C-alpha cells in the first residue's frame, strides 16, 4: 500500500522512566516515595545504573554510572536489578491499552509509535488526543512525553527533545532543526563526529550540502536525517505478538449454537494438529479466541502437562474449561471469527523419558490436565522430592502440571536390596516418646509411645542429621535417627534431639515416622 506523503500522522510516546515507574507502580517492591530509586544491570562486569527515577536524577546520578560510585554518593539509594523482560511486558501492556486509540501501534525504544492518521478526529483533534493520552498515562504514574508529526522519526525525536510539539504537515524540517543531533538516534560514533564538527543540531547538519555529508557518512545516516526532515517515509511496523502457530475460521454467518462452535473448534484443532505433526511438535498452551460480531473479544486458554497434539484431548480440555466457567461464553449475536493460537509449543519427544510405562504416564498426565482444567492449576498437586538432609523438608507438594516437565533433579536415595532409609509414613509433627538408651549415642532399648511400651529388638543408627544452622538464630539441636524394630516386628523411626553433652544434658526423644 502506498500512502501519500504528508498524509500520515504519527504520535510518538516516550516513557523515559519505564523501569522505575514499573517498580513504583508494583505493590510487591514498595519503595518509599522519598527514597531515590535506580535500576541497575551488569554491564562489562560492573553493576551500572540503567534507569533512574526523578528523584535519583535530581541527585545528579547518571545512567551508565557504576553503582558503587552512585552508592558512594547517595548511600540511601534504593537499588533494584533490571528486568528487561518485565519492562518489555509492561510496554506491551501499555501498547495494548493504546489499541483503543488506533490499531496501528508499534513498539519503539522506551516508547511507542501510534499511527493516528484519520483517527484524531474521534478524540477531539490532535492536540486534545495527545493531551488525553499523556494525561491518562500520567494518572497511571508513568512519566511520559509525546509529540505528533508527519513522520515517525520526527515525532520520536520531538517526543524526546521537545515534548508536546505538534508539527503541522510538511513543517517537520523546521520543527526538528533546533534539536540536538542525538535526537536522530544515530550510532554514537557518528553523533560524536557531528558534534566534533561543530554541527550540534539537526538543523546545522541539514544545512551542510548533501554531497558533503554523503562523502562522509554512510547511507543509513542520511536516510535517518531525511526521514526526520520529512523528506522520506518509512511505514511503522505495527506490533503484533505472533503465536507460534495460528489457525482461524471466519464465518460468513456468525455461529451461535454450542454444537456449531464445538464443530468449528474441532475442525480447527484438526488442522492445527496436522501442522503440529509436520513439525513434530505438541502444544503446551493453547488459546481459543472468540471474536464477537459486535467487537467484543473473549479468550480461553488451556495448559497441558505434556506437549500434545491430540485434537480430541484438546477439545475435551476446552470442554472442561467451558464447563467450569463462572461467566459462560456468551455468543451474543454470534462469533464471526474463531482463532486457535498455539502459544507454547514443544517438541513432543521430550516427554517420554524416564518412565517405563509410557501409556499409564500419559493417562495420568491427561487426568491431571482434566482435573486442572476443571479445578484450577493450583489445586492439583503432587509431591516432588527435595534435595535436603532435613527429613520433614524432603518432599513438597507442587502443582502437578508444572512439576512434571521439571527435571527430576534429585531422586531419594535408597540402595538396592537394603531396607528403606526413610519411613513410608512421616509424621507432620514428631511425637515425644520416653526412651531408655545408652549415652552418648547408643540406640534405644525400649520406648513408650502413646502409652504403649515397645521393647526394641533391632536398631540401626545413628544417622546424625544436623539442622540448617543458617536458618535459625539459635542453633537447633542435632538429631540422631534410629531405625528400630520392636518385638512385634513393627518398625519405627525415632530420634534423639540434641547431642549428649555437646548440645544438651538430657536429650529428648521423638518418633518421626513408621515403616511399613
Amino acid at each position: 500500500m502506498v500512502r501519500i506523503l504528508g498524509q500520515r500522522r504519527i504520535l510518538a510516546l516516550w516513557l523515559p522512566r519505564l523501569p522505575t515507574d514499573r517498580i513504583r507502580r508494583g505493590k510487591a517492591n514498595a519503595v518509599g516515595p522519598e527514597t531515590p530509586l535506580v535500576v541497575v544491570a551488569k554491564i562489562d562486569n560492573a553493576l551500572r545504573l540503567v534507569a533512574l527515577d526523578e528523584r535519583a536524577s535530581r541527585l545528579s546520578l547518571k545512567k551508565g554510572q557504576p553503582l558503587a560510585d552512585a552508592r558512594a554518593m547517595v548511600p540511601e539509594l534504593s537499588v533494584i536489578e533490571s528486568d528487561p523482560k518485565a519492562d518489555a511486558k509492561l510496554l506491551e501492556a501499555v501498547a495494548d491499552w493504546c489499541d483503543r486509540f488506533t490499531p496501528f501501534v508499534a513498539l519503539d525504544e522506551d516508547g511507542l509509535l501510534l499511527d493516528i492518521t484519520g483517527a484524531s478526529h474521534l478524540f477531539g483533534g490532535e492536540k486534545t488526543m495527545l493531551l488525553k493520552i499523556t494525561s491518562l498515562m500520567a494518572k497511571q504514574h508513568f512519566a511520559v512525553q509525546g509529540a505528533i508529526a508527519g513522520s515517525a522519526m520526527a515525532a520520536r525525536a520531538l517526543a524526546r527533545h521537545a515534548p508536546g510539539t505538534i508539527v503541522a504537515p510538511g513543517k517537520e524540517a523546521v520543527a526538528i532543526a533546533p534539536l540536538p543531533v542525538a535526537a536522530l538516534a544515530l550510532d554514537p560514533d557518528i553523533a560524536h563526529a557531528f558534534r566534533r564538527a561543530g554541527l550540534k543540531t539537526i538543523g546545522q547538519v541539514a544545512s551542510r550540502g548533501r554531497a558533503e555529508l554523503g562523502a562522509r557518512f554512510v547511507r543509513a545516516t542520511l536516510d535517518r536525517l531525511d526521514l526526520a526532515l520529512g523528506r522520506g517515509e518509512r511505514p511503522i511496523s505495527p506490533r503484533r505478538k505472533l503465536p507460534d502457530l495460528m489457525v482461524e475460521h471466519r464465518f460468513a454467518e456468525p455461529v451461535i449454537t454450542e454444537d456449531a462452535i464445538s464443530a468449528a473448534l474441532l475442525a480447527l484443532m484438526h488442522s492445527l494438529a496436522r501442522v503440529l505433526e509436520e513439525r513434530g511438535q505438541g502444544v503446551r498452551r493453547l488459546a481459543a479466541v472468540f471474536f464477537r460480531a459486535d467487537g467484543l473479544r473473549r479468550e480461553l486458554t488451556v495448559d497441558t502437562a505434556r506437549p500434545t497434539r491430540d485434537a480430541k484431548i484438546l477439545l475435551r480440555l476446552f470442554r472442561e474449561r467451558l464447563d467450569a466457567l463462572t461467566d459462560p461464553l456468551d455468543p451474543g449475536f454470534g462469533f464471526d471469527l474463531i482463532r486457535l493460537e498455539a502459544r507454547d509449543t514443544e517438541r513432543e519427544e521430550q516427554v517420554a523419558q524416564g518412565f517405563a510405562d509410557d501409556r499409564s504416564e500419559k493417562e495420568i498426565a491427561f487426568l491431571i490436565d482434566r482435573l486442572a482444567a476443571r479445578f484450577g492449576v493450583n489445586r492439583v498437586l503432587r509431591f516432588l522430592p527435595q534435595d535436603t538432609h532435613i527429613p520433614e523438608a524432603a518432599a513438597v507438594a507442587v502443582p502437578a502440571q508444572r512439576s512434571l516437565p521439571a527435571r527430576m533433579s534429585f531422586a531419594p536415595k535408597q540402595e538396592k536390596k537394603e531396607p528403606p532409609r526413610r519411613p513410608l509414613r512421616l509424621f507432620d509433627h514428631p511425637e515425644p516418646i520416653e526412651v531408655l538408651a545408652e549415652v552418648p549415642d547408643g540406640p534405644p532399648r525400649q520406648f513408650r509411645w502413646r502409652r504403649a511400651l515397645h521393647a526394641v529388638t533391632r536398631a540401626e543408627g545413628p544417622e546424625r542429621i544436623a539442622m540448617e544452622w543458617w536458618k535459625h538464630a539459635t542453633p537447633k539441636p542435632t538429631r540422631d535417627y534410629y531405625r528400630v524394630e520392636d518385638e512385634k516386628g513393627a518398625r519405627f523411626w525415632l530420634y534423639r534431639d540434641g547431642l549428649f553433652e555437646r548440645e544438651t544434658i538430657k536429650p529428648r526423644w521423638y518418633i518421626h515416622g513408621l515403616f511399613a
Partner: protein
Amino acid sequence: MSAYAELAITTNFSFLRGASRPDEIASEATRLGLSAIGIADRNSLAGVVRVWDSLRQIARQDEGNAPRFLVGSRLVFSGGTPDILAYPRDRKAYGNLCRLLTAGKLRAEKGGCILSFDDLAQWQEGLLFIVVPSLKTDPPTPGTSHRKRGRKDKVEAHADLKALLVSLATLAPGRVWLAASMLHKGDDRHRLKKLSRISREASVPLIAINDVLYHVAERRPLQDVVTCIREHVTLDTAGTLLEANAERHLKSPEEMARLFRSAPDAIEETQRFSSRIAFSLDQLRYNYPSEPVPAGKTPHQHLVDLTWEGAARRFRYGIPKKVRETIEKELALIAALDLPHYFLTVHDIVRIAGEKKILCQGRGSAANSAVCYALGITAVDPTQIDLLFERFVSQERKEPPDIDVDFEHERREEIIQDIYRRYGHDRAALTATVICYRPRSAIREVGKAFGLTEDVTAALASGVWGSWGSELKDKEVRAGKFDPENALVARAIAFANELMGFPRHLSQHPGGFVLTQDRLDTIVPVGPAAMEDRWFIEWDKDDIDALGMMKVDVLALGMLTCIRKAFALIGDVDGKPLDLARVPREDPEVYDMLCKADAIGVFQVESRAQMNMLPRLKPKTFYDLVIEVAIVRPGPIQGDMVHPYLRRRSGQETIEFPSPSPMHGPADELKAVLGKTLGVPLFQEQAMKLAIVAARFTPDEANGLRRAMATFRNVGTIDSFREKMVEGMVERGYERDFAERCFHQIEGFGSYGFPESHAASFAHLVYISAWIKCHYPAEFACALLNSQPMGFYAPAEIVRDAREHGVEVRAPDINHSDWDNTLEGAKIYKDAGFPRALRLGFRQIDSLGQSAAIAIVAARDQPFTSIADFARRTSLGRPALILLAEADCFGSIGLDRREALWQVRRLSGKAPLPLFDAQNQSELAEEETAPLPVMPESEQVLADYQTLRLSLKGYPMQYLRALFSREGAKSCAEIQNGKDGEHARTAGVVLVRQMPGTAGVVFVTLSDETGIANVVVWPRVLERFRGAVMGSRLLFVEGKIQRSPEGIVHLVSERLVDRTHELERLSEDGFSPRIHEGDIPPPPDPRGAPAHRHPRDVRILPKSRDFH
C-alpha cells in the same frame, strides 16, 4: 588407652574444602594427644610446610607432646577410582610423590591436576596407600560440576572395590590399606562389617580414619559456606551437597576407639602405618646450582676473586682501607655460614642483566654489603652508609639471606627467559603466592552463599576502602549503610571475617625464583602458571624460608626503566655514559630541590605523604633520604615515632635513649640500636633488635615475632608476643607507653616491614631520580612519560611539572612526533642554557597502536603536506586517522582538530589502493564547502583531555574561573599562599583521592590552572559529604587553611559540593531545546535520562587516581 593417628586430614589448602588452617590443625591435634597426623590435601602438598612448621614451633615450646607429622597427599583421580591417600616412606618415595603430582599438574589447566591410575602405577615406588572408599551417602563427587554427574560411578560395589585393592596390592605389596570411617551416616556399623569383609578378602588391612575437614566441630558452618562458594550455590539450595552433620573434625583417641570398638584393629593399624614412615621434611636437602662456579675452583675462591676484581673496578683510585677491611670481614662471615654459592648465584643473574645493559639493583638483607657493591648487585656505596652486615646475615638463622633484585619493568621478561635458558626448566621455577581471601572477596563470596543479592554484596564490598584490613569492621559495614544488626548481613559478615586469610588459590609469585642443582620436581610439585612457559612450585616464600631453600626475587621496577631511558637521553647530548654508581653524589642542589618538596616524578618521595614530609625532614645527606623513605610507612606512623623523630631532628627535643632501671642493665643499652635514628626506632630491624635487647627476646623468638607479623591473621600468637614484649620491657623498667608504641610499630610493619637496607636501596634511586629531575628536567619528564604506566602522577601532572621547570612541551604532530616522546632542539645542552623541548609522542594518544606510529615515521622521508598525502603514504586506516585528528595532530599542515576530522571522514574507510590515488586526491580537492563553525578554546582543551589526558592549550578550570570567583572561590595558588586559620573556598579538578591507614581521613588533591591544593576531609565531615568527596570530578570545597611551620598548607574541609556538571559548560553542547507550539504543560525535565552518549563525552576529564 589406644594411641591413634589421624591420617586423612584436609586443610584449607584443599581450597574450599578444608575449613581449618594448618596451625589450627596442628594445635588441636596436639591438644587431643594424637600420636601422629597425616596431612593429605587434594592432589597437593601446598599446606604441608605450614603444618610442619607449626608443629615444630609447638614442639619447641611444649616439648615432646606434638604429634609426629606425616607428609602425604590425597590423590583424586579423574576416572571413577576412589580417592587414595599416598604417604612417602622415605626421601626417594617423596620425590616420586612430587613427580606424580607434577605430572598431573602439567597435564591440567592452571591450578588443576589430572591424575589417572596409570600415573600412580608409574610413581608408586615407596609410597604407602590408603584407599578411601566413597560413601553412597556422600554428596555427588565433588569437582565434577555439581549434580551433573550421576551417582553410578561411585565405587562401592564389593567387586569393584575389592578388584581395586587387589590390583593396587599387586602393584605395591604390603603398602595398601583400606580406610573405614564412622561418620554417623546411619549405616556405619553395617558398612564397617562390609569393609572388614572386603579387607579380609583382599588381604588388605583395615585402617581407621575420620576423613577430617576441620579441626573442631564448630567449624562445620564455615565448611558449609566454602562448599557453597565452591559449588556456586546458596546455602538454601545446596541441599545434600553439604555434609549431613558436623562429625568430620579431629577426634580424640578415646572417641575414635569408642567409635571403632567393634574393630579395634583398625585403630591400632594407624600406629603400624605411621611406624612404617621414615620421611620428614627435615630431610629435604637443598643444593645450590653449580653453574655460577667455574670448574676447578671452590665457590669461596671464586667469590673472593670476583669480589676483589669488582672492588678494584668500583674504586678506581684504590680501595679505601675501611672498605677493604669490611670486605674481608664479610667474606669471612660468608665463608663461615657457607653462603658463597648464594652470593654467586645472585651475582650470576645480575651479570646477565649487565651483559644486556638492563639496569638493576639489589635490595634486602645482605644486599647493601660491601661485597654486593663490589659484585655490582647494589650501587649503594658502602662508604656512604654504614650498614652492619652481620645484622642481616644472622648466625642464628641458618637461612640464606634475602636479596631481591629490581630490574627495569619493561625488560624483566628478558632476564626471566635467560634464567630459564641457563638453569633449565626442571631446575628453575617461580615460587607460589598464596592468594588469600581479602575483605572484599570474602564478603562477596560469602554473601553469595547466603543468597544476598549481588547489589548488597557489592555495596558491602565497596564500602570497604582499602583491601588490606584484616577484618571488616562495623564501621565499614555502616559505610555501606547496612544495619549490622540485620541478622543475615551480620551473619554473612561474621563468616567473611572467618574466611578472611583462607587461601583461595595459588598463583605465581611475580619474580621469586627457586634455583636448584637437583630436579626441582623431586623436592616439591611444580605446575604450569598462567603465562606460557612459566612454571611455579606449590610453596610460597614463607615455606621456602622455613625449609631454608634459596630464592632470588627478580622484580620489576618502573623507575629503573625511567632512569635507564633518562640516562640514554642525557648520553645523547652530553656523551657521558652514566650508570647508577656514577651519578655525582651528595649534590646540594638536589637536596635543596627535595627540601622544597619539588618531587613530582621522583622515586618514592613523590607521594602526597612523602611530599609533606620532605620540608619537615629537610634531607641534607644520603642517610636523610634513607630515613625519609622509611619514616612515611605504617610502622613508624602507627608506633607514633614520626613526631618524636622530627622534634629531635629540629632540636626541639633532647635526644635521649629509653633505658631500663639500673638493676636490669646499662642505661645506654639502646644506644647501639637507636643511635643513628636519634633514639627513635624507625626501621624494622631496630624494632626487632629492641625486642631482643629491651624485652630480652631470644633471637629465635624475635624471628618468630617477625614471622607472626608477616603472616596474615595470626591473632592468637600476636597477643602472646605483645604480652611478652610489653611486659618484658616494663618489668625491666621501661616506660609502658614506650613499650606499647614499640609494639604498635612492629604491628604496623606487618607484612610490609621496611628494613634499613631496603630503605637504603630505595633512597639511592630517590637520589638518582631527583638528580636527573634537578639537572635534566626535560630528559626526566620525557623518560618518565616513556616509562608509563608507573609512579603516582598522570601524564598531565608530569607535563605540567616539566613546563613549570622551564621545559617547552610541544603537541603531538604527524610531521614531528615518534611513538615515544622525544626531545627537540639544541644538542649541546648546557651551552644552550635552556632545556630541550619535549615533543609529545603518539604513545600519549589513547588507543592509538604502536604500529600506526611506526608506519608514520617510516613514511616520513619528507614532510606530509595534506591529509590525503598523509593517508596515502602511511596507508593508515580511517580509525587511526580519526584518532590522530581527534588528538589534533595535523597542526603542521594547517588543520585544526575540527577541520582535520571533517576531512578525514571523507577518506574511504580502507587503506586506499594505489591505483586510485590520483582519483582520490582530485575528489578531495574539488570539494568546496562553507567553513565549519570555529571550535571554542575551552572545547579544544576538553577534547585534548579526552584524547591525550592532558592539554597544552589551557586548563579546564581557567574557563570556569569567573564562575567560581563570583562564588568567592580562590585559586589553588591562592590557597597555597593563604594565611593559617583563614576561612577559604576553592574549586578544582580532583587529581588524587587517598585514604591512608585506618584513620578514616580522606586526602583529596585538587588542581586548577594555578597549581594544586591539598584538602583534608575528617571522618565527621566525610560522613556528611560522602557523595561529593567520593563522586566528584570537579569539587568545590569550603574550609579553613592550615599552615604548618614548615610551610605545608592544607585546606581542612567543612563543606564540599560536587560541581562536576559545571564541566559541561566547557563544551559548546550546552544548549536547551526550544519548546514548540504545543501548549501542553512541560513534563519533568528530561535531563538525567538522555539518549546514549558516547563514552568520550561522559568522561570529560580522565578519572582521578584513587589509592587506598
